[in-house]
C-alpha cells in the first residue's frame, strides 16, 4: 500500500466548474480540518483527493505514490487510491445490511475472513448487535458509524471525512466527537476532516486549512488560525467581527508599543516594529478584547479608550451582544459581548453613549486589503 511516512500532499488548480487553487498537506496520523463556508470548494477538494473528480492541473501524492499529476498525465482511479471516504450523506448501500456494507468496503468481500473482520470493525465503532440491520433501520448516528467502519475496512492510505457530523443532532454529535477522538489514537494514516464548524476543528484537528472561494488561505493549528489570521479575509472567516483598516503611525520600542492611526484615533498595540511606518494595515480585535469602561476608572497600559453609542443590543442567554457605533458613526461598528448582569449595571440601551476599552494586546495586525 505504499510508503505512508511522508503523508498526503495536494496541489490542485482548476478554473471550471468551480475555481480551485488549493495547497494542503497532512502527515500520517494527523487530522487536518478543511474549514470554510458552504460552497467554498472544500468538498470538491476532497473529491479530487478521492479520485472522484479530476482537476485541470496539480499533483496529489500519498507517501511515495503519485495519485494525480496533471502534467505527467497520471490519473489513478478512485478504487486504486485506497482512500476511506465518509460522505456527508453517508451513502450507505441501502439494500445491504450494516455488516454487508462494511464487507463491501474490503479488498476481498467474499473471503472467509471478511465477515469476522467486518464484525470486528462494527464492534470498534460500537455497533455490535446491529450487524443485520438495514441502513433505514438505523439512526443517523448509527449510519455514520457504519460509514466510518466501511471507510476503514480497506485499511485506507488516507481517511477523508466530508462533514460527517452535519446530519446528526447535538447530543449524538458530541458522542461521535468522543468516538472519533478515541478512534484516531489507532489511526496511522492522514485524516482530512471537512467542516464549516470552527469549534469542530478546534476539538478534533491537529491542523487546519482555511478555504474560501476554492483557495486555501491559511494553514496552522486551529487556535493559531483563529487568533493569528494572516489577512482580513481570514479574520472575517474565522468569525472576527471587528476588522478595520488603518496605518502604522509610529513604534515606541521602549514602551513596547506600536501606534496605529484609525479614523482619527491613535491606537496603541503590542510592538510590531518590523512593519514600516506609514504601511496600510488591517487590524482586528476579538469581541473579548473590547470591554466596557467605567468613566471614573483610569486606563491601564495598552488600553485604548474610545467613545461610542449603542447601536444594537441582542440578548443571547446570559450574554448580551452589543454593536456600538464608534464616534457615533454607523460605518464603524464595534462588536462586544457583555455578561447580562453587567449590561444591566451599565443600563445599556440602544442610543446610550458608552466608553469602550480596546485592549491593545488583543489587537492583531495584518497586511492591508
Amino acid at each position, binding site marked *: 500500500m505504499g510508503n505512508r511516512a511522508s503523508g498526503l500532499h495536494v496541489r490542485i488548480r482548476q478554473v471550471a466548474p468551480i475555481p480551485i487553487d488549493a495547497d494542503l498537506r497532512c502527515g500520517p496520523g494527523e487530522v487536518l480540518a478543511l474549514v470554510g463556508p458552504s460552497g467554498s470548494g472544500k468538498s470538491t477538494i476532497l473529491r479530487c483527493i478521492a479520485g472522484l473528480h479530476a482537476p485541470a492541473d496539480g499533483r496529489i501524492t500519498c507517501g511515495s505514490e503519485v495519485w494525480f499529476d496533471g502534467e505527467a498525465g497520471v490519473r489513478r482511479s478512485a478504487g486504486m487510491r485506497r482512500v476511506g*471516504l465518509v460522505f456527508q450523506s453517508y451513502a450507505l448501500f441501502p*439494500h445491504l445490511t450494516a455488516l454487508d456494507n462494511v464487507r*463491501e468496503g474490503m479488498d476481498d468481500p467474499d473471503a472467509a475472513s471478511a465477515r469476522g473482520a467486518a464484525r470486528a470493525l462494527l464492534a470498534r465503532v460500537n455497533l455490535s448487535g446491529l450487524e443485520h440491520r438495514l441502513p433505514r433501520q438505523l439512526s443517523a448516528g448509527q449510519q455514520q458509524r457504519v460509514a466510518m467502519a466501511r471507510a476503514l475496512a480497506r485499511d485506507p492510505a488516507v481517511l477523508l471525512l466530508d462533514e460527517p457530523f452535519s446530519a446528526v443532532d447535538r447530543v449524538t454529535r458530541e458522542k461521535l466527537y468522543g468516538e472519533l477522538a478515541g478512534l484516531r489514537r489507532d489511526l496511522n494514516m492522514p485524516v482530512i476532516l471537512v467542516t464549516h464548524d470552527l469549534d469542530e476543528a478546534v476539538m478534533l484537528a491537529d491542523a487546519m486549512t482555511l478555504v474560501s472561494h476554492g483557495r486555501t488561505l491559511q494553514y496552522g493549528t486551529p487556535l493559531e488560525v483563529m487568533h493569528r489570521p494572516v489577512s482580513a479575509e481570514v479574520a472575517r472567516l474565522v468569525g472576527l467581527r471587528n476588522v478595520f483598516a488603518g496605518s502604522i503611525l509610529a513604534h515606541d520600542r521602549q514602551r513596547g508599543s506600536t501606534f496605529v492611526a484609525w479614523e482619527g484615533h491613535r491606537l496603541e498595540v503590542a510592538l510590531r516594529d518590523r512593519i514600516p511606518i506609514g504601511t496600510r494595515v488591517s487590524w482586528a480585535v476579538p469581541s473579548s478584547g473590547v470591554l466596557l469602561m467605567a468613566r471614573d476608572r483610569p486606563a491601564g497600559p495598552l488600553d485604548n479608550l474610545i467613545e461610542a453609542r449603542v447601536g444594537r443590543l441582542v440578548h443571547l442567554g446570559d450574554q448580551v451582544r452589543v454593536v456600538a457605533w464608534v464616534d457615533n458613526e454607523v460605518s464603524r461598528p464595534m462588536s462586544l459581548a457583555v455578561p447580562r448582569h453587567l449590561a444591566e449595571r451599565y443600563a445599556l440601551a440602544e442610543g446610550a453613549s458608552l466608553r469602550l476599552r480596546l485592549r491593545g494586546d488583543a489587537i492583531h495586525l495584518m497586511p492591508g486589503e
Partner: protein
Amino acid sequence: MDWPALLLSLELAGATIAVLLPAGIWLGRALAWRQFRGKALVESLLALPLILPPTVLGFYLLVAMGGASGLGRAYSAMTGRTLTFSFEGLLVASVVFNVPFAVQPIQRAFEAVAPEVREAALVCGMSRWRLLRRIEIPLAWPGILSAAVLMFAHTLGEFGVVLMVGGNIPGETRTIAIAIYDRVQAFDTGAAGVMSAILLFVSLGAITLSYLTASRFGGLRRG
C-alpha cells in the same frame, strides 16, 4: 380455446424478455448516466414504437425483413426459410416494438440510484462487474422487473405488428391475440371470451406482481 396460440404467445414473450432485458439494462444504464451529443435523438428513436401506429411499424418491419431486404436475404441464405411469417421474424418484430417498454423503466430506475452510492462503491474499490451485480442491479431491480412485466404483457397483447409481420399461421405465428380475432371472425364468441379472460388475468397478475415488488423494494431504495 386455442392452447397452442397461448403457448406460442408465452414463448414469444419469454424469448423477447431473454433477448431484450440484458440489452435494456445496458442501454438504460448508459442513458441514465452518460451525457453525449444526440442523446435526445437516441431517446426519441427508442421511444418511437410507443407512438407509431402498429400497422406502420409492422409495414416497415415487413419491408426490412422481406425477401428483397438484406436482412431477409441473409436469413434465407443461412436457414433456407423466410424471416417474415416465421416465429423468428415475429421475435425480431417483438423485440423492436418492446424497446421503449424495456429501456424506459430501467433508465428511470438507474437514474434514481443516488450518485454518491455509486461513488462510494467506486471508492471501496469495487470492480465494474461487482458494482453492477452487488449495487446497481439490486437497486434498479424494481425498474428491471417493471420492464420485464411490461414486455410480457405487451407481447401477449400486441396485434397489429404481429398480423403484419407474421400473419396467422397456426403453431408458427398465430399468437393468442390473433387467435381471439380469428375466433371473433368465426362467430365463436365463447372461445374468444375464454381467451380474452385468460389474457386479462395473466396481464393483471403480472402488473400486480410488478407493483407489489416495486413497493417492497421502494422502501429499500429509500434507505
